[in-house]
C-alpha cells in the first residue's frame, strides 16, 4: 500500500518548486524540469479519472464528477493506479492539488479522507506575492487577479461551455482556500511557508519530509537544494523552456523567486486592498498586515511559533494590542514565553504572530532555546496511544487578543521528528 501525501497550495505558492525539490532528492543529476513523471501528478488530472473509470469525465457535470472523485483516490491507494509503472516502489506518493478541502454532496471529503492520504503539506505564500505572480501567469490584470483571490465562488477549469484540460478545482478565495485546509479535521496537516522555504530550504524541506514519513539523509536534502536551486531552475527554463510556463513568447514560470518581489509590482492601493480582504487569514498565517511593509523576519517567525527559538516581541504586541494600533517605537520589550496550562501549553503574550489585523508585530530578536514541548495527544482528542506524541505549542491564551488556534498547532502525524 502506498501512502498519499497531498501537496496542497493555492496556485503560485511554491508547489512546483517544492515538488522539484522532492524530485531531486535521489536524482543522480538535476532532474529535467519537463520530466516530472516520477512525481504523483495532480489530483485534478482528467487522465487519472478517465483511465480509472474507463468513461470520460467530460460527459459529466462538474458536480457529478466531484461525487466520484473520492473513489478515484481510494483506488490509488489500493494499487490500481494506472499512471504508476509497476516497479515504482516509493512508499510515499506526493500528489499536488489546488482543490480547496471540500466535501461532496454525500459528505465525503472530495479528496477522500484518512484512508486515502496520511496527511497534507499545505504550502502558503504571502497573498501579495501570490497576486503579482498569478496575474503574470494567468494573463490577467493585477486588479482582476485580486478580485479572483477575493471571490468565494472562484474556480480553476470551472467553465461549462468547454472542456478544460483538468477537472474543476474550487478556489474559494485566498482566505477561503486556506480556511478550508486549516479547518479540516480529517488529515494531519503540516504548514510550509514559501518565505521560510526560501530562507532555510534544507531545514524546511527536512521537516516536511519528516512529517510525510519519508526518511532522507542530510546529503540527499543538500543535493535537492543544490539541484533545485531557484537560479538552476531558471537556467534550465532559459535553456529549454518549461511545459508549465504561461503560453506566451518569453513567458517564464520561474520568474523572480523572491519572497518579497511584490513590493515593486503592486500599487499601495492594491496592497491595501489585499490586506483588507484577507486581514484575518494573513494574520493567522503570519503575514504582516497591509501597512506593514517591512521584510518578514523568517527565523524570528519560526521562533514565535515555537519551532526552536524564542522570539522577543515588543510590548505593543502584548494582548492589549488593538486593531488599528500600530506598533509604536516603544523600546519596552518583553520575551514571549510558553507556559503550561493544565494539560496544554500556551504562549503568553502571543498576539504578535496571530494577532488581530492592525497589530504590527516587529520581531526584534530571537535566540534559540530547546525544542517545543512534548505532549501525549489525549484519546479524547482523537489521538491514539503510541501514535502521536507531539503537539506544537499554540497560541490559545484566554488573555490573548487574537484567541486563535495556531495553524501550526497540529498533530505531527505520529512521525517522530529528527531528534
Amino acid at each position, binding site marked *: 500500500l502506498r501512502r498519499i501525501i497531498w501537496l496542497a497550495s493555492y496556485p503560485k505558492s511554491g508547489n512546483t518548486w517544492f515538488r522539484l525539490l522532492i524530485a531531486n532528492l535521489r536524482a543522480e543529476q538535476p532532474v529535467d524540469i519537463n520530466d516530472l513523471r516520477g512525481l504523483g501528478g495532480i489530483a485534478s488530472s482528467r487522465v487519472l479519472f478517465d483511465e480509472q473509470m*474507463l468513461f470520460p469525465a467530460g460527459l459529466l*457535470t462538474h458536480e457529478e464528477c466531484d461525487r466520484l472523485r473520492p473513489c478515484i483516490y481510494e483506488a490509488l491507494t489500493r494499487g*490500481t493506479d494506472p499512471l504508476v509503472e509497476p516497479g515504482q516502489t516509493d512508499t510515499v506518493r506526493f500528489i499536488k492539488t489546488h482543490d480547496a478541502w471540500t466535501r461532496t454532496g454525500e459528505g465525503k471529503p472530495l479528496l477522500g479522507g484518512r484512508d486515502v492520504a496520511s496527511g497534507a503539506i499545505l504550502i502558503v505564500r504571502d497573498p501579495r506575492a501570490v497576486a503579482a505572480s498569478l496575474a503574470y501567469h494567468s494573463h490577467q490584470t493585477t486588479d482582476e487577479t485580486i478580485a479572483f483571490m477575493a471571490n468565494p465562488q472562484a474556480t480553476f477549469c470551472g467553465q461549462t461551455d468547454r472542456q478544460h484540460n483538468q477537472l474543476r478545482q474550487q478556489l474559494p478565495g485566498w482566505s477561503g482556500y486556506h480556511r478550508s485546509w486549516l479547518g479540516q479535521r480529517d488529515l494531519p496537516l503540516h504548514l510550509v511557508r514559501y518565505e521560510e522555504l526560501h530562507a532555510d530550504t534544507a531545514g524546511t524541506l527536512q521537516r516536511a519530509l519528516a512529517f510525510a514519513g519519508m526518511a532522507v539523509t542530510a546529503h540527499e536534502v543538500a543535493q535537492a537544494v543544490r539541484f533545485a536551486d531557484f537560479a538552476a531552475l531558471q537556467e534550465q527554463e532559459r535553456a529549454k523552456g518549461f511545459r508549465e*510556463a504561461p503560453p506566451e513568447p518569453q513567458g517564464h514560470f520561474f520568474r523572480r523567486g523572491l519572497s518579497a518581489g511584490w513590493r515593486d509590482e503592486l500599487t499601495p492601493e492594491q496592497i491595501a486592498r489585499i490586506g483588507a480582504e484577507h486581514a484575518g487569514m494573513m494574520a493567522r498565517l503570519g503575514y504582516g498586515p497591509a501597512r506593514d511593509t517591512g521584510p518578514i523576519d523568517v527565523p524570528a517567525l519560526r521562533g514565535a511559533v515555537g519551532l526552536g527559538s524564542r522570539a522577543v516581541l515588543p510590548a505593543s504586541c502584548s494582548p492589549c494590542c488593538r486593531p488599528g494600533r500600530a506598533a509604536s517605537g516603544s523600546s519596552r520589550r518583553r520575551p514571549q514565553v510558553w507556559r503550561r496550562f493544565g494539560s496544554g501549553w500556551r504562549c503568553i503574550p502571543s498576539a504578535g504572530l496571530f494577532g488581530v489585523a492592525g497589530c504590527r508585530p516587529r520581531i526584534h530578536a530571537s535566540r534559540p532555546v530547546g525544542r517545543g514541548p512534548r505532549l501525549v495527544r489525549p484519546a479524547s482528542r482523537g489521538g491514539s496511544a503510541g501514535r502521536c506524541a507531539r503537539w506544537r505549542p499554540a497560541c490559545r491564551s484566554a488573555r490573548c487578543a487574537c484567541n486563535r488556534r495556531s495553524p501550526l498547532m497540529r498533530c505531527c502525524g505520529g512521525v517522530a521528528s529528527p531528534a
Partner: protein
Amino acid sequence: VFTYVVSGLQVSSDLALPGLIPSPNPHGAADVAIRAGNVPPALEDGGIRGLNWQMAGDRFLLTIPGILRMLLTGGREIRYQAEGDAELRDAAIFVSGTGFGILLHQRGRIVLHASAVQVRDSAVLFCGPSGAGKSTLAAALVDRGHALLSDDLCAISMTPGGRPLVQADGRQLKLWDNAIDRLALTERRADPVRGRLRKFYVEPRVATAAPLTPAAIYMLREARPPHPPGIVRPSLVDGATMMRGNAYRPSLVRRMDQKDLYFRAAVAIAREAGLFTLTRAMNFADMPAVIGWLEAHWRETGLLERAA
C-alpha cells in the same frame, strides 16, 4: 428497434443512439445487439476488477455511477440498465461512446481514440485523449470540405491482405458550445449530447460512410516545452508505442493482452500510411495556421495528388 452501422458492424438497438449512422439495410442480421435488461451490480465469477468495472471471461461490466450499468458480452451484445431513476435518454452517449468503444476492444479491433476525415480517397486520423482537440480539428477540416468519417472513436480493421482499413463511425460531430461558437457552427447545432451538458451534436456539412485506407495518423500534442510546434515522424517503435497509448482505452489493451496486436497494426499502418505527431498551440486563433501545415504536409507526402 433502431439499426445503425458502426465501424462496419450492423447494430440493432432498442435505445435511440443519436450521432450514429442509420443502417441502409435495416433488416440485415445484426452483429451487435443493444438491449435493455437486468444487469447485475457485480459479476459472480471474479475476473479483473477495476473501480467501477469488472472483466471476467468474455463479459465486461461497466457502471456509470448514478446513470447506467452495461454488460458487454463477447463483443456481440450490450445489455444496459439505468441506475436509480436516471433517464435513459441521458445515458445513450455512454452506450454509443464508451460502451461501443470497449465492445470494439472486446472484438480485438484496433480502436483508436481519434476523429477522422476524408482527404481525397484516404482517411486522415487525429488521435488524442479526451480534450486533446480531436473533434475541434476535425470540425475545422470538415468546414474546409473534407468529409467527416468518424468522431472520437476510430476502428481500424485489417483486410485479409493485411492492409488497414478505417471504418466510418459517426454521422455527427460532438462539440462544446465554445467551439461551436468559435467555429461559427451555431446553425448546424443539434441536440445536446446529454441534457445537462453544453456539448452538442453538430451536423457536419459533409460526411462519408465508406471505409477508407488510412493515409496518415496524427497524434495530437499541445505545443509546450520540450515539444516545439510542427509535424514530426517519430521512429517506428516510438510511433507504435504512441499509437497504443492512443487506443480508446490504453489500459484495456494491456489487460486484454493486445499489445502485440497493436504493435503489428502500427507497423502495417506506418508502412501503408504514416504515423506523425502534430504539435500545436491549443487555441482557435492558430487553427488556420495548423490547417495550413496539414495541407502543406499532404502536398509534400503526395496525398493531395493521389486523387483517383
